[in-house]
């Protein structure tokens, strides 16, 4: 499935690791996502390693973000914003993480509120 590749999974892991720990629920879910995708054994092995070896921002810098659609980029940004706010405290490091990710995604001028508003418009059309 286009866009659902190891790069995407790696970004999900980086987001999940943004607060420096990967919670059990995150691990379980990411395992399920990995299994539901059609990865080969080697890809699964690579992805499984990210459950114990933190994926840091530097690791996702070299990904080709042009491969993702605008909607996928918005989704990634939405998840990153949600995760860094998870514990109710947003640290300077987390703000920096999201800002740097925005730059990589080419979405510097987009905020989570913009994404929510876009989805609300879509609910009017599709839901």
């Amino acid at each position, binding site marked *: 499935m286009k866009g659902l590749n190891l790069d995407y999974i790696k970004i999900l892991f980086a987001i999940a690791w943004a607060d420096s720990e990967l919670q059990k*629920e*995150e691990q379980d*879910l990411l395992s399920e996502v990995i299994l539901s995708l059609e990865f080969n054994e080697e890809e699964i092995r690579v992805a499984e390693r990210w459950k114990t070896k933190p994926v840091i921002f530097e690791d996702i810098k070299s990904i080709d973000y042009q491969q993702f659609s605008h909607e*996928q980029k918005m*989704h990634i940004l939405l998840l990153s914003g949600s995760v860094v706010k998870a514990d109710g405290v947003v640290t300077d490091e987390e703000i920096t993480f999201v800002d740097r990710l925005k730059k990589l995604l080419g979405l510097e001028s987009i905020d989570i509120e913009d994404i*929510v508003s876009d989805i609300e418009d879509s*609910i*009017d059309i*599709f839901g």
Partner: protein
Amino acid sequence: MDVSSLLIKLTTTLTPSYDKIEKDIKVYEQKNFGVGRDELARSYADRICWKFASLGAITTLPGVLPGIGTAAMIATEGCTLSGNLAMMIRWMGSMVAGISLMYKRDVYKKFNKDFIQVLGLWSGILVIGEESIGQTGDKVVINQEQAVPPKIFNRINQKVGSSMIKRRGGVAIGTLAPFGVGAIVGGSFNLVTMKSFKQNALKYYSFDGREIYYIKE
């Protein structure tokens, strides 16, 4: 309410807003001028998948709960279905309607039939094309007016049910865990479900609509 009645209720009550989708497609086609029909249908369906994934993530965020659409609300109340199920069926229906419009099919007359058949392909009870070679199951021709064999409805119901159990599980995890985790959970379940549905919707419309389907044994 039996399974057949429930699905008929769903597909009729949750009939997408063709006009709104048609307008949305026009804008999308203008933005992607020159792109071929197959690629355009694929990317449009993919766009719905990612938006539905984001919706799944958003609904786990405290204080950010977009209202669900009116039709979905009616179905939820009328059939006592969960909001999640109604939303999933509604967005799936919108995807089918969107692809149908892109392929210039008569969505107004054929939506119910098309939608049931795509649900049948997605749930694995119906097969078409090369996959039907060697199938010994019954041939199926679904018309708008004809009753759909209960066997098909039952399998669709199982598939929808299992998806929702997974989704519910995800939400439960998200509720217990910090909401950032819930966003990944909710978003990913929606994404995986809708991506798999998309493949079948595109496969369905790659045929000309006159094919004979087989019930998989």
